[in-house]
């Protein structure tokens, strides 16, 4: 609606990278959840998933605008969202894998919102004041997403034979991808030292403290950690990402500069 003030900054490449990871996690999960619109099992969940998607896309807009300002090359939120190439997206792989079914979608929302609540809580104190403001706002929204998804994980896991089997299959599929969130890397180390935000690896124990009790209550069996590695946050994406971007970027690629 209005341009956020453009800042002249001397942001480090790690700082921009860190904000982009946050932005792209929100953007790509928001895009995936929007696919449910009109297709959810019941109308209440259709509304819920669309609303969660809206919150995430709204957060992505703020974060992409901020990343564009930090970068200082005049790229706005639309250019950041729609005109980058696949290798420039910094979301973790978990966000881009297909929705599959309501079980996998719900479980991914649970893993993601549990992580975001912990991360936003830390980022409220970021030395980057714009990021701190975005964190304070996003935290309120993420708490609702976490309540919603954790209730559903328990209902589905500790539900019928079919819902249990589907949610267990979703857990077996998604669990290896969650390791990527906490993999140590130079960007996180530099950011933790700078006071902009925590290294994501430092949140692993707290994250497990949130998710494991819920998975237990849902009677789901957590798989063992495997050497499986994914590299979405370094820009190396799965085969699903190109298809997602083709859908998401279609309008801007076909009609460059088009506006509503």
């Amino acid at each position, binding site marked *: 609606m209005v341009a956020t003030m453009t800042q002249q900054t001397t942001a480090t490449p790690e700082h921009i990278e860190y904000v982009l990871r946050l932005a792209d996690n929100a953007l790509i999960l928001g895009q995936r959840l929007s696919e449910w619109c009109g297709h959810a099992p019941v109308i209440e*969940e259709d*509304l819920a998933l669309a609303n969660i998607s809206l919150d995430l896309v709204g957060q992505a*807009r703020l974060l992409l605008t901020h990343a564009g300002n930090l970068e200082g090359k005049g790229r706005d939120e639309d250019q950041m969202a729609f005109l980058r190439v696949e290798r420039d997206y910094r979301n973790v792989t978990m966000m881009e894998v297909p929705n599959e079914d309501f079980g996998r979608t719900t479980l991914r929302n649970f893993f993601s919102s549990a992580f975001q609540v912990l991360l936003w*809580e830390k980022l409220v104190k970021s030395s980057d004041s714009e990021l701190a*403001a975005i964190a304070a*706002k996003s935290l309120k*929204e993420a708490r*609702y997403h976490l*309540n919603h998804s954790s209730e559903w994980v328990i209902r589905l896991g500790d539900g019928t034979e079919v819902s249990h089997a589907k949610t267990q299959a979703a857990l077996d599929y998604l669990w290896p991808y969650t390791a990527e969130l906490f993999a140590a890397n130079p960007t996180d180390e530099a950011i933790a030292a700078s006071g902009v935000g925590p290294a994501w690896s430092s949140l692993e124990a707290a994250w497990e403290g949130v998710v494991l009790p819920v998975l237990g209550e849902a009677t789901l069996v957590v798989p063992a950690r495997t050497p499986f590695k994914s590299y979405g946050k370094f820009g190396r994406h799965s085969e699903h990402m190109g298809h997602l971007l083709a859908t998401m970027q279609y309008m801007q690629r076909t009609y460059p500069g088009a506006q509503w």
Partner: protein
Amino acid sequence: MLTEEQAWKLLDEVPDPEVPVVSVVELGIIRELHCRPDGITVVVTPTYSGCPATEVIGLSIRETLQAAGAGKVDMETRLDPAWTSDWIGDAAREKLRAYGIVPPDGRAAVGAAQPIRFVRKTLTCPRCGSTNTERLSEFGSTACKATYRCKSCLEPFEYFKPI
């Protein structure tokens, strides 16, 4: 040019597009007004990050002030402090209730990362006053509302979530 007092009064007539019974001032979206000889700066804060009403609200504010001769209208977005439903005053809460939307019950939650599960607030039906109500969904027709149903009068109603 307008005085600040005149501008506040004008904006108090601008309805929220999705909850038209309350104004953008009553919702706490307008944070500050600064009048200059040649125009006015309006500082606004969004309710939810992805609220689709935000752009319409900006347009309504601009049109209202310009029609009243405010001159150049500059809009500034401010995220800090983050918007909270705690800013909705008592009078506006009663307007919401009369309109069929239960206003936020208590203050916005702070703290605990642990999910709060299966906790249900007992809300009073805004139509018949019964407390025999149930939540249908944590989400509703807009980002700011949850969906409930009254088991006495059998009517659905909405709840403005504390955030």
